[in-house]
């Protein structure tokens, strides 16, 4: 009996080591698979054209062609597209923050008749997929004279999207009412309370919503494809696609250089705001 007891912890420990090694092996193989395409993108971006289709392929470029980046950004009006993209992103983030804080405050901190019913309506609108409304929206934007401009991409963000309203409302509700009651007694208006009391306490959620909106706009493809009919208003995601067809898909090195330039800002933002990202995604997993 005693012997048995003394053996058990040892085999348990052994088992733990084996399981740890196998876990690591699987994770490393997975990590290589997940990282490889990015590495391949960067490697191709720096190769001379002839080397991009060479067999056997090389991971390390034989010659680092930094000029590919220059070529890629001059072969198409890259910086113009970048500017358009940035305009859309910034205006969308502003629109989202302004509208969803106001709406979320109305749902979270003011008591009024029919509020909760209407809030369920807001949540239900998350079920409306963009492809369902994109064609009639085109007609609406056409009548407003917005087609061919960037307006269809950013003006709707001032109309508050359900998901952001939901996230902000959840957050606002966690702020103690004592804080706002005091301000109310001092004669502060609702808008004043929102700006002076609620917003300063809501920086984390504002950052999360802003980040996600920025990335969504930066990466959006279908919206620009539908509404941007003039080449000088193209965003990067759209411009890259046209870059591909223009060059018959053969200038892989330029294409990868341009692609990596589009990915880069997002990666930089990720490393600066890692914590907000992870929190944001956990929130979107409906934990809140």
């Amino acid at each position: 009996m005693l012997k048995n007891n003394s053996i058990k912890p040892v085999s348990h420990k052994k088992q733990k080591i084996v399981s740890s090694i196998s876990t690591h092996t699987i994770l490393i193989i997975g990590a290589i698979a997940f990282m490889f395409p990015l590495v391949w993108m960067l490697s191709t971006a720096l190769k001379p054209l002839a080397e991009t289709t060479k067999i056997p392929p090389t991971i390390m470029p034989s010659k680092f062609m930094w000029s590919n980046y220059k070529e890629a950004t001059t072969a198409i009006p890259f910086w113009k597209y970048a500017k358009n993209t940035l305009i859309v992103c910034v205006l969308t983030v502003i629109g989202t923050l302004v509208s969803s804080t106001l709406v979320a405050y109305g749902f979270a901190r003011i008591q009024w008749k029919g509020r909760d019913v209407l809030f369920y309506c807001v949540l239900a609108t998350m079920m409306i997929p963009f492809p369902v409304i994109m064609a009639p929206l085109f007609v609406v934007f056409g009548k407003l004279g917005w087609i061919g401009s960037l307006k269809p991409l950013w003006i709707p963000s001032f109309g508050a999207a359900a998901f952001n309203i939901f996230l902000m409302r959840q957050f606002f509700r966690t702020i103690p009412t004592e804080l706002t009651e005091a301000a109310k007694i001092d004669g502060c208006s609702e808008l004043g309370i929102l700006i002076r009391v609620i917003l300063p306490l809501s920086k984390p959620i504002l950052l999360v919503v802003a980040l996600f909106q920025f990335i969504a706009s930066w990466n959006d493809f279908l919206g620009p494809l539908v509404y941007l009919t003039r080449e000088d208003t193209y965003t990067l995601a759209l411009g890259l696609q046209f870059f591909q067809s223009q060059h018959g898909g053969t200038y892989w090195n330029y294409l990868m250089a341009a692609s990596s330039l589009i990915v880069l800002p997002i990666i930089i933002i990720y490393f600066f705001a890692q914590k907000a990202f992870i929190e944001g995604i956990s929130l979107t997993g409906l934990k809140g």
Partner: protein
Amino acid sequence: MKKNTENLLKGLLFISPWIVGFSVFQIYPIYKSIYYSFCQYDVLNPPIFVGLKNYSNLFHDEVFLKSIVSTGLYTIMAIPLSMIVSLFFAILLNQKILGRGIFRTIYFLPSLVPMVALAILWKWMFNGENGILNYFLGLFGIPGPNWLGSTMWATPSIVLTGIWGVGGSIVIYLAALQDVPRSLYEAAEIDGAGWFSKVRHITLPMISPVIYFNLILGIIGCLQVFAVPYIMTSGGPARSTYYYTMYLFDNAFSFLKMGYAGAMAVLLFIIILAVTFIVTKMTASKVYYAEK
């Protein structure tokens, strides 16, 4: 009484951006989709009422029927694969392992890459002649198929491309996994439960609401798949990757058949509602909600 009215006005004033946005950019277009679906409308001329003609035409339209089948096939392939991969890695990454933070970053990063860049990159890697994937398979003596040029492999290729973006789901699962009480695992270990039975009887039931949420969002996303196939295959070969949204897009903007596109939009909405309803019914008994 007076206070109630005042609050109602205040509340409505605060939510007015949503009311305006919802009316102009959602309700009105939905109403228009329904309206156009009963019309022949080419944008340039006023709509002509044609009754149910668009709908009856759809059911005789081989391209439409094929797009439903291929979208269904894509969804059936993509959903289980992406769920298994994301859950599997989330469970591994939730253990106390060396370099956990680095691993989590590596798995998450690709999901930030814009769809367009992702699609172009994979199109390049899937190339049948000089793509890196077939070279790699060749090292093991496996002759790789002409991925995107083959009716058999084009959809699986697009599904594989999607796997690269499961990082977001992994993070959602990780957040859920952290809420599973340790004590449950300890109790199970005392009862002699192994790794697999712990996953099966504790982990999966405890995070089932999140799995359900991801499942619904995943299906809705798959039914609308557009950017990746549009860029990688343009719907080919032989329309094998010509999915629902692509045909809807072409009807509206290439063929200027807004009425036809409207009927497709209405049907897509009904399909999504129906699938959500069915999945919710089917999983109801399996989703576990702790009392709160």
